[in-house]
């Protein structure tokens, strides 16, 4: 794989995300909201472009957060929030982050003069990472849809207060568990 393709993939995904948010912005009915959203979109683009051009990590992060917040903000305040498009947007955002990391890891290596053996081994590592990323992306997209189906079918009563509390508690528990897992592992060692 050429380094140019590795670098281009996250940029394509980012372009799609930016175009998506712009599309939703220009279709806002409220002129004042349109003006505000356009300014925020422009600001996000400035952050992203400068962050990508000058390798500014903070600016790039600020641009991404602004773009994501703008999308969800628009859907909270002015537009309806449909699960599947919102989930697609979120999965694309996560895919962008992961592809960017992959490009940063592998593109500089591919740009070098490598022996066929080293190239084959690096290709193996990249393939493994891509497979893992594809699986995670697919799961991240499908699991919430299944959850919605279960809730709509009434299998899980999602609209009651106890189930909302239970779900919130479960979310917090999982996050705490994930946060503490490395510390526990280190203690065991």
């Amino acid at each position, binding site marked *: 794989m050429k380094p140019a393709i590795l670098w281009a993939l996250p940029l394509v995904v980012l372009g799609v995300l930016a175009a998506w948010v712009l599309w939703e912005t220009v279709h806002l009915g409220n002129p004042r909201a349109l003006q505000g959203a356009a300014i925020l979109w422009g600001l996000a683009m400035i952050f992203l472009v400068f962050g990508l051009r000058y390798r500014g990590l903070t600016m790039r992060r600020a641009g991404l957060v602004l773009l994501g917040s703008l999308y*969800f903000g628009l859907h*909270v305040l002015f537009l309806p*929030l*449909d*699960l599947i498009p*919102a*989930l697609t947007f*979120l*999965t694309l955002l*996560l895919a962008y*982050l*992961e592809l960017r*990391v*992959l490009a940063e*890891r*592998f593109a*500089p*290596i591919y740009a*070098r*003069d*490598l*022996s066929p*053996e*080293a190239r084959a*081994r*690096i290709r*193996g*590592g*990249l393939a*493994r*990472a891509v497979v*893992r*990323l594809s*699986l*995670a992306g697919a*799961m*991240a*997209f499908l*699991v*919430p849809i299944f*959850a*919605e189906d279960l*809730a709509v079918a009434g299998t899980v009563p*999602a*609209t009651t207060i106890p189930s*909302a509390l239970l*779900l*919130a508690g479960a*979310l*917090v528990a*999982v*996050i705490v568990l*994930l*946060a503490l*897992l*490395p510390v526990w*592992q280190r203690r065991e*060692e």
Partner: protein
Amino acid sequence: MRTPLASGLSAAPLLFLLAALATRRWEFILLGLAPLVFLAFGSLFPPERPRVVGERTLSRDRVQVGSDAEVTLTIRNEGPSLDLVEVLDVLTPELAVVQGTNHAVVSLPEGESLSLTYRVRPSLKGDYKIGPTRVRALDPLALGVEDALAAGSTRIVVAPVMEDMRRVQLGPRRTRPWFGHVTSRQIGAGLEFWGIREYVPGDEVRRINWKASARLDRIFSNVYEGERSGDVVIILDARWESAVGTPTVNAVEYGVRAALSVADHVLASKNRVGLIVQRDVLDWVPPAFGRKQLYRILDHLVHVRAGGEWPYTFVAWVLSRYFPRDALVVLISPLTDRTALDAVTNLAALGYDVAVLSPSPLQIERRFLPPGPERDLAYRLLAVERENLVSQLRRVAQVVDWDPSTPLALPLRRMKAWPRPA
């Protein structure tokens, strides 16, 4: 170790949860599941702490600037299988990788080895370390990493480029009572004919001048000028203000190159050579003969970096205290200030034979400036100033104004003998 991405993904579901509670929309709860799935997927296959052993071999541990050395790094995984592992053999910026790679991201199953071969080309002289080798087990989803060291550091000494000085006549004018290559104007063992004298028992038969003996009816022997050796002290100006140019191409680096070449040439002619370096510290190598002395001087020169502001008075003190008085003093300086003029005048007044070798800072700077009338005018003005300084120096010493883009031997060969004969 958790990465910033993992922390961000952990925060995202909480934010979605808050958004769901604030807006009373259950869709946000479901959206919070997406980053959670990523996190869960990552924590299913966390990166193991790498247990790897590395070994590094170098084709040469002493190289010259611009020439290559091949490095072979072999990493063996003695721990659990590593899904994705990043291997980086740490290099200093002065060592550029010209072939192969010192950096790889691969899968490394248990018991398997990875071999990386690459060639490095140093751009600057110095004493460098290759390594250590850093190994980082990665999570394919970039949510966690585990670091380890695989191999220690390996030393590589990068020597400056030596100039070709084969046809240069460079040596001390005053000699000492040791055999060498310098014609001493005293009778002794040598090749230059000096005269004849009456035969005395013990004279070699091949030295008998048969023509003179036949003409004068007595036996006469040829006598020759004795070839002796002398002392040369090289003073290298490596002060801050002498570092005109870039970190790799500057007057101090050219000075180092010239000092090593002069030392090699003078030592090859069986003379003693000493060295004084003006840098952060004022250090010196006492005069001595031979190949070992060249390596001693090389070891000192390899560590020379521009710095310090030692005035010439201290150099003169060291010279008078630790070096012989009848040595030839070769001052290698870009002559960026007029203190060199006073120093050379004082040394000459003290009775030293002084020669100045000056890598031209004007020529170095000129290379880095875009062509134009302003550059040419500035160059002409500065060249006049420099010529003035050089002509003043020439009253008391022999001066070689060296354009570093040309070989050093070129300005030296233009002179019949350097320094001028008495």
